[in-house]
């Protein structure tokens, strides 16, 4: 999880009132369906930085004696600025799948159709499982969670469309450029599917 996203995510939690430290973790967990695995240490470190930067300030204690924190005016302004600033490409994590397929497309020892199919099966499985969750989600009750699942679903849909495109492009090139390189230097046998991609298939999106 990117540090920056945790920082802004935490700050956004203060909009509806003062919170105590552990409450931030619980609320972040609930709103993202447990998908933002942020540990308690990171929560407190980030909270300290928000206080240091003046975006959040201490605001007394609740009935149980837990120290409360509240959004400051500079914090509110910073949050508004964050909402209005688009996320740029350089802030997104590098995509292992994009790199894998771009490399595989250039490697004659790899049967890219197998690589694509392995990934397609895995992506489709994830899409099915997230769709299950989305069907159970009630956007009237938990809008954040519903929209977050929609995000995963649309992202996987995009990934699957891109996989189709990669496969079609590579196959078309094979047909239109008949094995001139293969004739002079025969390509090694395609690597088996198991070696192509299985063990790390769940780790391709971060």
């Amino acid at each position: 999880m990117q540090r920056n996203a945790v920082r802004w995510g935490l700050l956004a939690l203060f909009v509806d009132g003062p919170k105590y430290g552990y409450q931030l973790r619980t609320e972040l967990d609930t709103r993202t369906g447990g998908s933002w695995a942020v540990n308690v240490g990171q929560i407190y470190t980030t909270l300290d930085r928000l206080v240091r930067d003046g975006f959040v300030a201490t605001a007394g204690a609740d009935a149980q004696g837990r120290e409360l924190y509240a959004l400051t005016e500079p914090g509110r302004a910073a949050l508004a600025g964050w909402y209005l600033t688009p996320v740029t490409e350089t802030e997104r994590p590098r995509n292992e799948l994009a790199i894998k397929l771009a490399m595989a497309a250039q490697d004659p020892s790899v049967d890219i159709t197998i690589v694509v199919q392995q990934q397609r099966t895995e992506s489709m499985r994830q899409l099915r499982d997230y769709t299950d969750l989305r069907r159970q989600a009630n956007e009237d009750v938990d809008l954040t969670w519903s929209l977050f699942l929609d995000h995963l679903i649309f992202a996987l849909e995009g990934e699957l469309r891109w996989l189709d495109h990669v496969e079609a492009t590579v196959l078309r090139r094979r047909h239109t450029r008949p094995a001139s390189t293969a004739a002079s230097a025969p390509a090694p046998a395609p690597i088996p599917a198991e070696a192509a991609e299985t063990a790390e298939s769940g780790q391709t999106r971060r």
Partner: protein
Amino acid sequence: MLRLSEVERVYRAGEIPVWALAGVSLTVRAGELVAVMGPSGSGKSTLLSIAGGLEVPTSGSVEVEGFGLGGLDSTAVAHLRRDRIGYVFQDFNLVTDLTAAENVALPLELGGSSTRAARAAAVTALDEVGLPEVADRFPDQLSGGQQQRVAIARALVGERRLVLADEPTGALDSQTSLAVLQVLRARIDAGAAGVLVTHEARYAGWADRTVFLRDGRLVDATPARDDARRLLAESS
């Protein structure tokens, strides 16, 4: 329940045989929705036509609700198709001169039901797809999404145990497509078997499994469900 075993379908392009399906085996259980994806010309529509008894395989066997289609004469296949199999097409295929209820009642009346019984079943089916109020309207008085839901009601009316849908959301916007899938999914969850041909991965996500066709072959299937919440936590 639908069972295809080693189904081949060969067309002849002049002297050259073309395998639309080259040894496809697929079982769809009651309560299961299977999505079929693949590029144009991969055999998706042929697969659906053969599953519904509209086309005869060159070799292999097709079983619907325990009836082997190969052992039935064409009249028996037609009856099975009318009584047990529901079709949903991309372009709805409603009869423009009949009201929504009459369209839905049509297969029952053709099967010998009384007009009154067929009408009652049609109204129930329209209720099931969330459109009780359109019973007496004609197709051209309905939106695209409503027409498709009427078409689904027609595909589901009576004792249909197998639903075959060919790009049912193809002509619909995103929200309407979801409403159509909800109806389809509810019927499957109530015990029908279903096959959904689609090129949209997002809609295939509604199926229990997705199979991919390429050049007439089934290349893969989506494995069993996992705990998606756990996956989410692990991948974050």
